[in-house]
């Protein structure tokens, strides 16, 4: 393995990946808990370690706008944001995918204001869910490093040409100092080909990007984008396979942890999966048949893989780290929809927890599973259940 082991804060690990990707343009605006990523990059640029244009824009809206411009002329482009920053940027986020510009963005997932919270949950990214981006969730710094590199390869692949977000839970994943296996430049160069936009903004071959569409054309543009996003899964799988072969670190759209012979499966997404794994270890030690399914690829939604992972279970307990105010948890509702066509369906119960940085410890996870099983047993699977919240 061409790796070197170092101790690093996860955010700086992401910055290392961006540097190894030899990015051309970074446009970013400060917001906690994303800031360390772009501070790391700014330092690399200032020290001449990374030859890139760093645009210290005046807002997240302009950060993504600048990324569009840079990507459209054929420059490899990166930004990072979180929480309200992503929401402010949101108008531009939808354009990145519609114009098929392969911007890579790290999202340090953060709770949303009214009551200002800089801490982690998935509310920000859920509001960006339908914007046509590929979303990859990671659980720790190593995965964030790996997936940032993979993100460039996936985004810029000629059969994809879509923006990719690497979703890293704010603080729980971004601010942890971990041991990393970094890659050397030669390995990265082998893995990541140069970015070539097939029809960039070019004075010698004029192109028009961003037309307006009347009702007789608009629908087709959306269908084309949806097809591109769905088809990207092939390249995502290929990329992870190649990455696995290079590094020994393997990734799948849906990853299973000790699910064999389990009648109850817990489903998590993001950094809390690590605590959930510890809870599963303990529960299995005490003879309980509880396993864990971790959702890595959020968009395109891996229906097939999820159904394969969950269809054999009796009970499925889904943790949502986001609240869809007035409705069921977003991950749970999609899982329910995916399982609905099955003739023999597992019972599915959704639990909302971990909002605004509230921790769910391994002990909490054991209690959460017990609560879920109790709700299934008493036939209350349709309830909106919140875990670890005061009445």
């Amino acid at each position: 393995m061409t790796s070197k082991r170092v101790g690093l804060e996860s955010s700086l690990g992401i910055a290392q990946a961006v540097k190894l990707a030899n990015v051309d343009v970074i446009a970013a605006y400060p917001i906690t808990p994303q800031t360390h990523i772009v501070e790391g990059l700014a330092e690399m640029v200032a020290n001449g370690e990374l030859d890139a244009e760093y645009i210290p824009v005046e807002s997240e809206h302009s950060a993504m706008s600048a990324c569009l411009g840079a990507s459209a002329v054929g420059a490899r482009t990166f930004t990072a944001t979180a929480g309200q920053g992503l929401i402010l940027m949101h108008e531009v986020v939808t354009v990145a995918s519609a114009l098929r510009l392969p911007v890579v963005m790290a999202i340090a997932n953060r709770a949303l204001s009214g009551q200002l919270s800089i801490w982690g949950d998935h509310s920000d990214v859920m509001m960006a869910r339908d914007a046509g981006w590929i979303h990859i969730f990671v659980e720790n710094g190593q995965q964030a490093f790996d997936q940032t590199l993979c993100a460039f390869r996936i985004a810029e692949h000629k059969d994809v040409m879509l923006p990719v977000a690497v979703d890293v839970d704010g603080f729980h994943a971004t601010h942890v100092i971990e041991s990393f296996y970094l890659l050397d430049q030669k390995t990265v160069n082998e893995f990541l080909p140069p970015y070539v936009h097939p029809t960039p903004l070019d004075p010698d071959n004029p192109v028009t990007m961003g037309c307006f569409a009347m009702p007789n054309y608009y629908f087709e543009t959306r269908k084309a984008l949806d097809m591109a996003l769905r088809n990207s899964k092939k390249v995502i799988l290929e990329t992870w396979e190649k990455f696995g072969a290079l590094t020994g670190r393997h990734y799948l759209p849906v990853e299973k942890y000790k699910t064999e012979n389990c009648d109850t499966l817990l489903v998590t997404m993001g950094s809390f999966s690590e605590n959930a794994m510890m809870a599963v270890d303990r529960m299995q030690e005490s003879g309980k048949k509880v396993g864990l399914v971790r959702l890595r690829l959020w968009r395109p939604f891996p229906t097939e893989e999820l159904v394969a992972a969950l269809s054999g279970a009796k009970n499925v307990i889904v943790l949502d780290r986001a609240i869809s105010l007035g409705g069921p948890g977003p991950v749970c509702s999609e899982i329910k929809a995916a399982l609905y066509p099955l003739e023999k369906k597992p019972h599915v119960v959704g639990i909302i927890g971990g909002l605004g940085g509230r921790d769910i410890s391994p002990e909490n996870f054991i209690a959460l599973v017990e609560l879920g099983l109790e709700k299934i047993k008493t036939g209350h699977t349709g309830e909106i259940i919140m875990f670890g919240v005061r009445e």
Partner: protein
Amino acid sequence: METLSVYVPKLVTNKEYIASGHRACSGCGEVLALRYVCKALGRNTIISNATGCMEIISSPLPETAWEVSWIHTLFENAAAVASGIESGLKALKRKHGYIKDVKVVAMGGDGATADIGLQALSGALERGHDFIYVCFDNEAYMNTGIQRSSETPFGASTTTAPSGKVSMGQHTWKKNMAAIAAAHNIPYVATSCSSYPFDIMYKIEKARKVKGPSYIHILSVCPTGWRCPSSDTIKMGRLAVETGVFPLYEIENGEYKMNFDYPKLRPVEDYLTAQGRFRHLTKEQIAEIQQKVIVEYEKIKMLSSRKKGK
């Protein structure tokens, strides 16, 4: 005049970068100004266009009127997109052997520039990107149906600030974008008008040579929104300048220069009474406007007489 009609066309390239067949209203001063802007820019240009009239008339899928590379993304971010284009090209030149000499140009209407896009514009000017920003100011949100903007002149009636029994319409004075741009200490700022093609081209050519940001504010006559005959477009722009309502000047490295200085300005009444949007104004209100126009005009003249270091 006869000699001029033989001589003048030779000064202007025959090449069109915004093709005919676009969907602008008849008598549109904005697309006229755009046409001359593009002629002066030439082919080695990448345009970032804000949402608005010029975007809508030029790019209905699956057609385009553009013969230069052009991108439209949103309403308020043309300057930010231009920042990215300029930075991207810089990186490509330094790292990947890109050799083309491209000028990046952002453009938008008065709403996109002075209202919703002011922050992005300010950011891009302050960061010193090498680009030109062109504001085509037709003094209201014409694309969405003549709603007021901060560039709508005092006394004009628009659909969101209409004149009525208790209102004269717009009761605020036009935002001074040239001064705002100049306050960023950028190398070149200028005003121009759709009725002065050579002035437009002169200023765009000058801006093209500037290293760093430049800002050109072009008053663009809109017969649809100003409620005047579409055959009066050129006349109306000339009246705006000759009455002193919209003086043409440059601010080069902070130094003002009045380009057309009239020893005696025409009365603003000539300009105001020719347009339906001012039709409701009383004699007193016209007098108030007249007074303000003279004050503002004298201000520019005074600034123009000041030379650097004095």
